């Protein structure tokens, strides 16, 4: 299947492993990609935790979606750089994995996350256990071929309401077809939670920019996700209603927003997100 183990597989090689306990590895961000959202660094770190968990359970189960807590953003990811990944598994059983993880470039933190939780679900429903075993042998050995990852499509986002200092509502049209669905996951395509987070960051940056009389040259970046939870699978072609609500000034130059994602009126995702303004940087 085109895109399987390439379009959304963000671990090239596992360099150290204690199955079910900890792992280190890396992902080389291809120089040819035009954009690598910082939430994808969290995806890469989460995928390393998933490999460390799945191998311990002989690929009968895999973590899917779940909860991210205390996700802190550092420097942005430049194409052509190597993302160094590490994870520590705090708890693993047949119901759930809880882990912390870090991604860095040249020793500088890109993301750090603590207390993330992924429910363990039957692998058969999402991918071939045998294909996953073979993939694991490759990335635990010589590593995956470089440069497989290509750009993911731009979000199809339509802002339907923007009230400065209060809220922003938008419609996200999930593509019906995209290569990343062949990888996430071949037997059950699911819109990745980290792509949803990227869409939420995109609109939160817009709301932040529209909410103050910022000095010229001010730029904005996501700095913290205290918590984010995926409560339902979002399939291809779905319409997602996104809402960002101003919650509080959480410090000098920082604004905390509440985030919500609804599918057919049902809460598919929820969380909080902090945006930082950077004057003259």
């Amino acid at each position, binding site marked *: 299947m085109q895109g399987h183990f390439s379009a959304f597989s963000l671990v090239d090689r596992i360099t150290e492993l204690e199955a079910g306990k900890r792992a280190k590895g890396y992902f080389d961000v291809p120089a040819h990609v035009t954009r690598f959202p910082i939430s994808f660094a969290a995806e890469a770190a989460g995928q390393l935790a998933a490999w460390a968990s799945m191998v311990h359970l002989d690929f009968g189960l895999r973590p899917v979606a779940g*909860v991210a807590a205390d996700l802190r953003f550092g420097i942005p990811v430049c194409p052509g750089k190597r993302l160094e990944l590490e994870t520590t598994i705090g708890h693993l059983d047949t*119901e759930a994995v809880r882990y912390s993880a870090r991604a860095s470039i040249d020793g500088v933190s890109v993301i750090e996350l603590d207390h993330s939780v992924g429910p363990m679900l039957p692998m058969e429903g999402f991918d071939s256990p045998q294909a996953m075993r073979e993939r694991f042998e490759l990335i635990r050995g010589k590593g995956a071929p470089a440069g497989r990852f290509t750009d993911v499509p731009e979000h199809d986002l339509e802002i339907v309401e923007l009230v400065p200092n209060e809220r922003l509502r938008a419609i996200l049209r999930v593509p019906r077809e995209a290569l990343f669905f062949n990888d996430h996951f071949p037997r059950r395509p699911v819109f990745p939670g980290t792509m949803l987070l990227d869409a939420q960051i995109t609109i939160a940056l817009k709301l932040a920019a529209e909410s103050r009389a910022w000095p010229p040259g001010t730029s904005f970046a996501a700095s913290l996700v205290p918590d984010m*939870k*995926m*409560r339902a699978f979002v399939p291809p072609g779905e319409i997602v209603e996104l809402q960002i609500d101003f919650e509080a000034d959480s410090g000098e130059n920082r604004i905390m927003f509440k985030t919500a994602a609804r599918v057919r009126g049902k*809460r598919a995702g929820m969380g909080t997100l902090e945006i930082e303004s950077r004057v003259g940087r």
Partner: protein
Amino acid sequence: MSQDEIKKEEILEVFPTVAKTIADALGCDVDDVKLNVSLIEGLDAESIDFLDLVFRLERSFKLKIPRGKIVEDSRGDLSEAEFEQKGIVTPAGMERLRAFLSEVPADRFSTPMKAADIPRLFTAETFCKLVIRARRAGASAA
């Protein structure tokens, strides 16, 4: 006092923290978290929320709660086969469940009941009792 017996004062002592933890996990107002509210039917909780909630309670109360503890404890000394048959809770299982989830009104125990539907019965008080039992288990293990 038997190990299973839980006093109302104990529940009320942990309830404020449990209620805040539930509100944080479900993204609802803490005032909506009443002691007898069903988390699924009253607060729109999903299975991922229960997983999230148990991990949050562990952090809030600094204790260890084994996964699946409520369902496991609700079986008591019944074997899995005695408790459920082909996914349906047996009469003996129902009796044990009613005693274990004594905080749940009797009319909410529909029969036949699927074992998978047991979480629909859980209220905020169920999680208060979970915390209290985990504290006792921690204390007796220490």
